[in-house]
């Protein structure tokens, strides 16, 4: 437990000390919120779907959680580059412990980042239907963060060089985001697209946030909870396996 705690704390300290990184990572969600929120707002409203800011805010929060958690896991690449990975791999603790510490650290940082974006959304005019649902929404943020931090560690354990990051961004992270219904409603989609959105775990994270924050959803809360818990187990398991196989 001590090893998990110290590695979790390390992730948190690194995040808190990197103010430039915090500001930089808020740039993209802000851009989506302001440009899409205000730009597409009138069109969305004319189509009879209400306020686009209300609709897109949970998606932007989900985006922030997704990007931060995946890249926190992929941060293993930097640990590999700067040598710190060796220090953890030769330590007399099971590698699964190291992986869990890293995943929980990444998930915590991603949840904090999601909360910061939620505050920004509130400043931009977003209003949740009920403040009481906020703690439950945070729980879903944590679950989503664990899912993607696990995926990030699984990917980061296999990446050998920095060029691979662009590949992951373009062929894994962005498709997960754009196919999650973060920017558009999930109902009424062509059947192929509808199928893809249903196998994307982020769809369930964002849908749950949308249900809790604005009261509309495609899935029930229980379905989202079960899918996210199952995917979290799968990705954390996959991450643990990949991490245990690292050779330097």
């Amino acid at each position, binding site marked *: 437990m001590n090893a998990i*705690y*110290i590695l979790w704390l390390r992730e948190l300290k690194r995040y808190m000390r990197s103010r430039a990184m915090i500001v930089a990572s808020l740039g993209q969600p802000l851009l989506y919120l302001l440009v899409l929120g205000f730009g597409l707002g009138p069109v969305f409203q004319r189509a009879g779907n209400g306020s686009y800011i209300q609709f897109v805010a949970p998606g932007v929060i989900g985006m922030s959680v997704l990007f931060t958690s995946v890249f926190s896991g992929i941060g293993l690449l930097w640990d590999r580059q*700067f040598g*710190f990975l060796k*220090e953890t791999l030769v*330590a*007399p*603790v099971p590698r699964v412990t190291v992986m869990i510490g890293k995943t929980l650290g990444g998930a915590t940082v991603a949840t904090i980042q999601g909360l910061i974006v939620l505050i920004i959304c509130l400043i931009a005019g977003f209003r949740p239907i009920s403040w009481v649902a906020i703690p439950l929404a945070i729980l879903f943020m944590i679950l989503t963060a664990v899912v993607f931090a696990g995926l990030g560690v699984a990917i980061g354990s296999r990446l050998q060089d920095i060029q691979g990051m662009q590949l992951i961004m373009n062929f894994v992270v962005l498709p997960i985001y754009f196919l999650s219904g973060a920017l558009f409603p999930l109902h009424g989609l062509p059947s192929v697209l509808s199928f893809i959105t249903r196998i994307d775990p982020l769809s369930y994270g964002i849908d749950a946030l949308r249900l809790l924050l604005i009261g509309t959803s495609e899935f029930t809360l229980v379905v989202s909870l079960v899918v996210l818990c199952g995917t979290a187990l799968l990705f954390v398991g996959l991450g643990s396996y990949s991490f245990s196989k690292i050779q*330097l």
Partner: protein
Amino acid sequence: MIQVEHLVKTFGEFTAVDDVSFNVAAGEIFAFLGPNGAGKTTTIKMLTTLLKPTSGAIEIDGLDAAKQSNETRKRFGIVFQDPSLDQELTAAENMDLHGVLYHVPRKLRHERTQMLLELFELWERRNDYVKTFSGGMKRRLEIARGFLHTPKILFLDEPTLGLDPQSRNQLWTHVKNLNKTEGVTVFLTTHYMDEAERVADRIAIIDHGKIAAEGSPDELKAQTETDSLEAAFLKLTGSTIRDERADASDQMRQMARMWRK
């Protein structure tokens, strides 16, 4: 304490370690010498469970390093050739993290951290971020961290690289002291022949992945009919300058340096 039999490591077509066998007795200081790319670091990586051997057997304190890697890791400590500190943490935080990972009790952790940081003259800078340290200071911190827990076996992979003579002297005095008082077995690699001669009980010279000779410094000189360890080393390994293959981490470090420029 360390038994290696017919150890082989290949990377594709390239054989980095080729049928290497040796034994290191408990309480012995054993030096592994070789030119660049001879297979020293690859051997240490296999001994410390970072790399799986292609074939052969490694026994550390009676444990099979490949099958009982977790238990094996409890037996040793290591100072790496390359940096392995977290630059975004302070010196004290790096020591603390290491101490927790190696199950050093809190009180002992703090006492030993102070003793070691004072020994390597870093105590005054304990709360500074490692990224603000000079190369020599980072190296001293790596070494101090490696000594935080008292393992049965200590692997030192070119520990004095980038250290000034004073720090080198401090390091070897401490290593000798640990060996004498705690009976710690030491396995080291170095490029400095004078250091190997000064501290090692026994030396193995490795070249092209194979052990070329093994014995005490005097035995090696006698075997090669030379009057210094350096002359013996050159006679066994030749005088051609070797190139090392850059691995993925080396390439990434080079790229990061380019970006910083």
